[in-house]
């Protein structure tokens, strides 16, 4: 990735997915490198980033957000694709999932092979509805 594009993409990612407690923003986590190839494969998304001036990276966060909101309004489809690429990378990143586990208890692993514990079905919950008469039309 060329440095200017890489810097801009990293700065954009840091505004899309900000630092979260001890966890750095998506750009600082290095996710720009991860999605750069996918960005290149989508010329309309790459063009969005190329349209940002090099000085974007130097602007304050609020100013960056304003520019990005403008882009989102002007080009919702490619901007949406960029957001999806960012979310895909972020929410499958081990560091993010480990942070999520600490905050929510959601295990930082795929659903299989361990699965999850859930209490077995308890027929006592049927007490009220069992008392109903037939609720379907006879023919």
């Amino acid at each position, binding site marked *: 990735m060329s440095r200017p594009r890489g810097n801009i993409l990293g700065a954009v990612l840091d505004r899309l997915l900000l630092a979260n407690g001890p966890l750095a923003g998506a750009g600082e986590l290095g996710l720009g490198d991860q999605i750069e190839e996918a960005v290149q494969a989508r010329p309309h998304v790459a063009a969005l980033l190329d349209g940002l001036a090099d000085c974007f990276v130097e602007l304050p966060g609020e100013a960056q957000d304003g520019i990005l909101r403008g882009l989102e309004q002007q080009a919702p489809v490619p901007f949406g694709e960029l957001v999806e690429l960012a979310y895909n990378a972020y929410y*499958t990143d081990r560091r993010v999932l480990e942070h999520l586990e600490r905050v929510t208890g*959601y295990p930082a692993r795929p*659903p299989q092979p361990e699965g*999850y514990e859930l209490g077995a079905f308890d027929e006592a919950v049927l007490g009220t*509805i069992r008392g109903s008469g037939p609720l379907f039309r006879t*023919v």
Partner: protein
Amino acid sequence: MGADTDVLVVGAGAAGAAVSARLSESGVRVVCLEQGDWVLPKTIPSGSPDWEIRRQTTHHPNPNVRRLPADYPINDSAADLKPLLYNAVGGSTIHWGAHFPRLRPSDFRVRTLDGVADDWPLDYDELAPYYDRNDEQVGVSGVAGDPGNPPRSPRQMPPVPLGRGGELLAAAFDRLGWHWWPADVAINTRPYGDGRRACNNCGPCDLGCPRGARSSADLVYWPRALRQGAVLRTHARVCEVTVDSRGRATGVLYFDAKGNVRRQRANVVVLACNAIGTPRLLLASASKRFPEGLANSSGLVGKNLMLHPVAMVTGLFDEPIDGYKGPFVTSLVCQEFYETDRARSFVRGYQMQLCRSNGPLGTALGGPYLPRIDWGTDHHRMFLEQFGHGASLAVTAEDLPDEGNCVTLDPTLVDADGIPAPAVRYRVGENTFAIIEHGISRATEAFAEAGANRVVAPGLIDSAFHLLGTARLGSDPRRSVVDAFGRTHDVPNLFVADSSLFVTGGAVNPASTVQALALRTADHILQTRRTVDVPA
């Protein structure tokens, strides 16, 4: 018999598997041709860190997105809802949620009871023994005694866990005085079947089940059919049903894995390609004798497509309800508004099916449940408010048949073998919109009663989960494509045994009815095979 096989089945999905197993059990020589392949457990991505990305790509339920070699393109540009299906051994049960309800008695008598659509040429009682037989094969988790449905045999296994979301909604339905019941589910809660283990509540059933707990047709029927001698040929894409000079089916032509055209002869041909694939094949089999397509003297092949429009209503709770735990779309159903009520602005009705929630990425991206979570300064706060805090009610509407909703052959689009692709035209009807509006309102009420702090209802989702009605059953050859047993009116040794048969759609997931009908058709073939008019 002079043919290569007694019965040729096209399609190895829910129906084709059931037909093949039932016929081979009785010593009938069966060959099944399937354009897809086996889905191997090691390819199921639910144990992979990128499982939520694979859900959007290689394992997407829409073939136009997935675009695997076994898939054929569908021109859905004129369809309000985009058809979902899967091409493999097991068919669309490969990515299904395994919700396994039955139609109600009234579903078979819609014309008589409500003055719309048509009655089926069979009733619930005729199908009930086949539902039972199929349940025994599949293994159903649930509990008998649902006051919303006729009595049925004891379920093979106890219900899947309700989870916290299910408990909250069940209590809310009780307080509202509405029907609810644990769903019948084709997922093992105990070991059942050929080496199939119990569900471990991992969540994304749609990606496949490496434990074999979810009863897809490749696991339930095919091992038995193969043991009984049925022959299953994969990578075999059928392009034409062939007929002789007397108009009897003689077999099919198909492309093998190398693209060579092969012929398979048979005394009886059974189509089980789903309600898009079956009319596609019948229409593609037009000939001088059948210029409008095979078995299409009624002009109804491909027409009356029904898709079960669905709206998703999501409730968010203050407390975490761990919605990512448990089979993703099965726990309980509410059928309080299933039957016609003249006080409402629509006929027929809907089911509300409780769904659990997404993993982290699915939560952030949104989709059918909720909109995408906005980026920026509020993202992490909004994410934590939603992730693990939501449950959804899928409002599934009965979809009345409309001849304008149809499958035709696309004039230009073709699949990898050059076979014309299907084109789907589908518009959501006014009655359906009224049903959906009512359902969204009632689901919102249920979530409020359950204590949700926010309810979100994006409206009708643009996917079609169930494909129905394009070669429908009937006694009148002018008003139907096949008779009450699935035999085409025009070709005596050609049968249809899939979701195309549905005369009306009901408001429930169709798989158990599809398989019950398939077993009934197989029995009819067995009973009549000595007298059926077969090619010389």
